[in-house]
């Protein structure tokens, strides 16, 4: 009596070792004229019997087999995806989006290293400097003006990082496939937002982590978020009318001018990160986002303006 879990199988005696399907039987099978027990038997026999498999050869749809063969070999020619791509696919992103994100020009190792380096220097500066005394200016979020000063290099630099990323992501020189991408149908809103999104995430996340390493209150990362986002969104909004690199440089210049101006006028540009600064940043963010969404039809890679 057979066990519950075993396949009901007869001992393979000598009859099975020498039995092979003849042409007629195979033809009936291919045409769909074989049913029930006979078909089951044949199907169980075929996979591991080279002779019968070869017997099928003349009866199959050669074109269909050749097509699938080409697809299989093409897929095998593609290199396995790297860990960023696997991670993106694991969270449910369709693989074409993952590919586009991973291939954004300013997401190359050299750029990411440069970002980390800049952040490292800013954090290092903050750690090394001791709070300056004798600096006039209002206290910000409980920090004295003096201790806020040493955080300044960091605070000023962080909003510039996404701008540099945006300029690079759409730069003709850094993207070897620029012309090809322009001539392709997907050179529009989709690509723009994908690349911009990738740039923002990969600049903001390290910056926020670095902010945690700074000597200061733990709410520091939160303070950064609005101003950085505001400046970035302004850049993207300006990209609907200007070349993204020009927009990025312009926004960066405005930010630096603001910071310097506040420093000259009030003694410490830290006010830009205070309550008023956050509110203003929030307003700019909303306005910028509105402009961006309204004018998104103008976003395009490369078409000369």
């Amino acid at each position, binding site marked *: 009596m057979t066990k519950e879990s075993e396949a009901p199988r007869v001992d393979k005696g000598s009859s099975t070792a020498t039995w092979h399907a003849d042409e007629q039987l195979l033809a009936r099978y291919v045409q769909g004229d074989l049913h029930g027990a006979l078909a089951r038997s044949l199907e169980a026999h075929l996979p591991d019997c080279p002779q019968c498999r070869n017997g099928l050869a003349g009866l199959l749809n050669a074109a269909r087999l050749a097509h699938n063969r*080409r697809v299989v070999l093409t*897929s095998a020619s*593609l290199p396995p995806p790297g860990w960023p791509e696997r991670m993106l696919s694991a969270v449910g992103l369709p693989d074409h989006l993952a590919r*586009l994100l991973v291939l954004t020009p300013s997401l190359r190792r050299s750029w990411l290293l440069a970002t980390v380096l800049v952040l490292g220097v800013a954090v290092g500066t903050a750690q090394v400097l001791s709070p300056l005394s004798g600096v006039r200016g209002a206290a910000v979020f409980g920090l004295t003006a003096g201790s806020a000063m040493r955080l300044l290099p960091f605070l000023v630099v962080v909003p510039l990082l996404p701008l540099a990323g945006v300029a690079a992501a759409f730069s003709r020189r850094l993207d070897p496939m620029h*012309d*090809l991408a322009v001539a*392709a*149908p*997907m050179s529009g809103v989709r690509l723009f937002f994908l690349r911009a999104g990738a740039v923002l995430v990969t600049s903001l996340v390290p910056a926020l982590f670095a902010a945690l390493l700074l000597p200061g209150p733990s709410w520091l990362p939160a303070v950064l978020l609005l101003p950085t986002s505001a400046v970035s969104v302004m850049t993207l909004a300006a990209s609907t009318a200007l070349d993204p690199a020009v927009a990025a440089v312009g926004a960066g210049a405005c930010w630096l001018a603001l910071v310097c101006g506040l420093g000259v006028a009030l003694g410490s540009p830290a006010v830009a990160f205070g309550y008023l600064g956050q509110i203003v940043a929030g307003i700019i963010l909303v306005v910028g986002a509105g402009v961006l969404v309204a004018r998104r039809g103008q976003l395009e890679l490369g078409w000369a303006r």
Partner: protein
Amino acid sequence: MKRPSAPRPLADKGDGTAHDVGPPCVVRVAGLSRRYGATVALDRVDLCLSPGVTGLLGPNGAGKTTLLSILATVASPDAGHCSVLGFDPEHTAERVEIRRRLGFLPQELGYHRHFKVAEFLDYMAILKEILDRGQRRAEVARVLALADLEAVAGKRIRSLSGGTRRRVGIAQALLGQPELLVLDEPTAGLDPELRLRFRELLSSLPGSPAVVLSTHQVDDVAAVCQHVVVLLAGQVRFTGSPTELAFLAEGRVWVADERDPAAELAWRGADGRWRHIGENRSGRMEPVAPTVEDGYLCLAGRNAVGGDDGAHEPGSRGAR
């Protein structure tokens, strides 16, 4: 040297009417101008490109790349307007429609350094909006087979020879079965055997897309193009069939054993005899049927030095 009058309308079938009686234009260009700084790249170009293969002939700097870039919606003109496949590239939505039906091969093929052939084609297929993975793989497999690249599908592009890299470029242009192929110097730097394979590929493309290609190689044009446009210094100097281009030199091509100093252009052919274009003042030269190259040289004269390949070096350079 005689200069033909204003560009003739294409496919005028000899009845000489003012109307365009040939097949509808796949690409129509009117008054197109473009300059880069002080250089005029295109000067009020008017063109109508018919279905089939059109060759854009001209020396370096004639404006071929600029014209093709504009047709491929990669660059915009300073003046004039064009209509590609019935769409106007000035409008964003129509531009996207053109790009959906377009295959473009630029002069320099750009690719990320680490790219392998299949990977590059897969990425291009994404940019061409073939988003479904199965469909994309099948389409990449199709163009790999068409361009005969199956053997190198897993190799890095930068490790391939120039000719194979060019085939990769052509393969990418064929993704998505475009209606219009814009190829900038597709055969530059290819040896004759590869050029022959390219011609075979062009003549057997599924779907019969309209093709515009630029070249210095007159024999490519003669072999594979149904129409020729000669561009010199940003202006269209001739449009018509290769035969008509050859006809321009009718009665002006002579052959002799010695170089005749009175002829405008002269060079030594493969058979050792001197070929001359111009007048037969000495009366001692034999007339000979003109080739497409002769016709081209009539137009381009000493300016048509033919670029890097030295395919033809007439005139004083031809002297041994």
